[in-house]
């Protein structure tokens, strides 16, 4: 994609001297072991009931030829992030070199405007009580493991991925593996119609997996029963 597609001054697509980190998720290689989810939980002490990355699945096909289709999810670190625009106190900001979308916990007022703005549900509210970590009652999200990447390490989920489904690197570097994968494969992003220009690219994800699930077509009352059962043990 060329730099002519930039529409917002905060976008870093093709800007010389600026890194633009991205993740490619090859869904054909994902085996649904959830090791990425566990590694992330361990890295950040993410509380119960919320996740920085999660792996939902759909069962597709017709018996006996059925399979699970996984779609690992995380913050898309959008080039034109609606959460950055919407935060009234600039608690959410974009790191110009790298494109990380990060959160200033000490500044966040907990208005949840960023949560409402995110088309990917990547943000969540931290609970008021945590055992080991003093950061509470503010919005949290995936950081693309900023602290690891700045030490020349890959994010924890990428490090642990047993099938090498997740690949991380600089998209502005034409020699990086992510650049190669994005150039050589048909890739998809989630909800491209929102114009957020996500930095998480999927290989092998079809619309069946990236659209609203069939549960969305059920009555809200039924969904509410399942939601309360799901959240029963998590007082957030």
């Amino acid at each position, binding site marked *: 994609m060329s730099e002519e597609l930039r529409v917002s001054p905060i976008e870093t697509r093709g800007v010389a001297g600026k890194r633009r980190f991205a993740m490619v998720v090859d869904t054909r290689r994902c085996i649904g072991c959830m090791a990425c989810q566990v590694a992330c939980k361990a890295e950040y002490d993410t509380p119960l009931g919320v996740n920085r990355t999660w792996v939902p699945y759909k069962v597709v096909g017709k018996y006996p030829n059925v399979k699970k289709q996984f779609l690992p999810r995380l913050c898309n670190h959008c080039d034109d992030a609606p959460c950055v625009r919407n935060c009234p*106190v600039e608690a959410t900001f974009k790191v110009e070199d790298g494109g990380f979308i990060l959160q200033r916990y000490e500044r966040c007022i907990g*208005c949840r405007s960023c949560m409402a703005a995110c088309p990917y*549900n990547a943000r969540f509210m931290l609970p008021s009580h945590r055992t080991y970590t003093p950061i509470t009652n503010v919005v949290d999200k995936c950081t693309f493991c900023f602290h690891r990447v700045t030490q020349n390490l890959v994010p924890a989920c990428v490090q642990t991925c047993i099938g090498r489904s997740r690949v991380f690197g600089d998209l502005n570097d034409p020699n990086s593996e992510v650049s190669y994968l994005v150039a050589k494969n048909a890739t998809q992003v989630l909800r491209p119609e929102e114009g957020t220009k996500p930095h998480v690219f999927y290989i092998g994800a079809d619309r069946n997996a990236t659209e609203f699930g069939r549960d969305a077509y059920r009555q809200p009352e039924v969904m509410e029963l399942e939601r309360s059962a799901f959240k029963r043990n998590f007082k957030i």
Partner: protein
Amino acid sequence: MGDYVWFHDVSWHASYAVYFFVIGILAGLSFMSYGSWITPALRPLREKAAYGSLGLLALGGLLLIGDLSQPMRFLNILNPGYLNFSSPLAWGALNIVAFGICSVLYIMALKKGDEARGKLLALVTALLALGLPVYTGFDLTVHQSRPVWNSPIIPVLFVAMAIASGSAVGSLLAMGNDEAQKVLRQYMLWSAGAVSIMLVSVMGTTNYGGSAQELTFMIMTTGTMGLLFVGVGFLAGSVAPAVLLFAPMGKSQGVLMVSALLILVGGAALRYVLLMAPQQLQTLY
């Protein structure tokens, strides 16, 4: 079946809808108080509306601050070093503070009997009050991924609902005053009619949208949400008062009171559904 759905929480809960309702009424009351300088029939409402508006601002402020998960950091939003002017919340916070200051000055002028300053401050307060439903509407409109919210009609709808709610409360406050009721009937009639038309427009465009819009339309028109939106908000709270007030019997005191109450109940239901329904679908993504 067989899908593993990860449930997310809604961002804004029902307390925010109560805040929308309160802010709508207080803006409407502020319009009424200014209207009393233009239309002599509304003169009995001038002080009552000004006091009511300031009292509701205190309640609304408490609701807004209480809804933050870090309530003690609410001053961050007024810190010039932190303010992000691309967020409607930042503009809204400044608008609320300016409105509060002007309301206090206006009430002080009213107490002193300073007519010239009072009229000017009433105008400034009413203009700032106009910003309140507009900013709450923009709060929703800027979220590009949410059906219904992401529509330019929402701020206009919120202004119409503010006029309807404000004139309904004004009508209850001016009970027994025929001259004031005659003017307030007109306000209620045309604002309830405008709200009805805008709701038809919102429902139409939502139903004819993409899959997310269609699903949101289903949530808004079926089950409990459907009862609240279509039954209480649209039919009972907007269409019925407009029809009742337009009918020949619409000038009677009883019909005016019933219409005012219907508009208030409908306004509360509409704000709840407009806030919550577009969030329900998103929780499943």
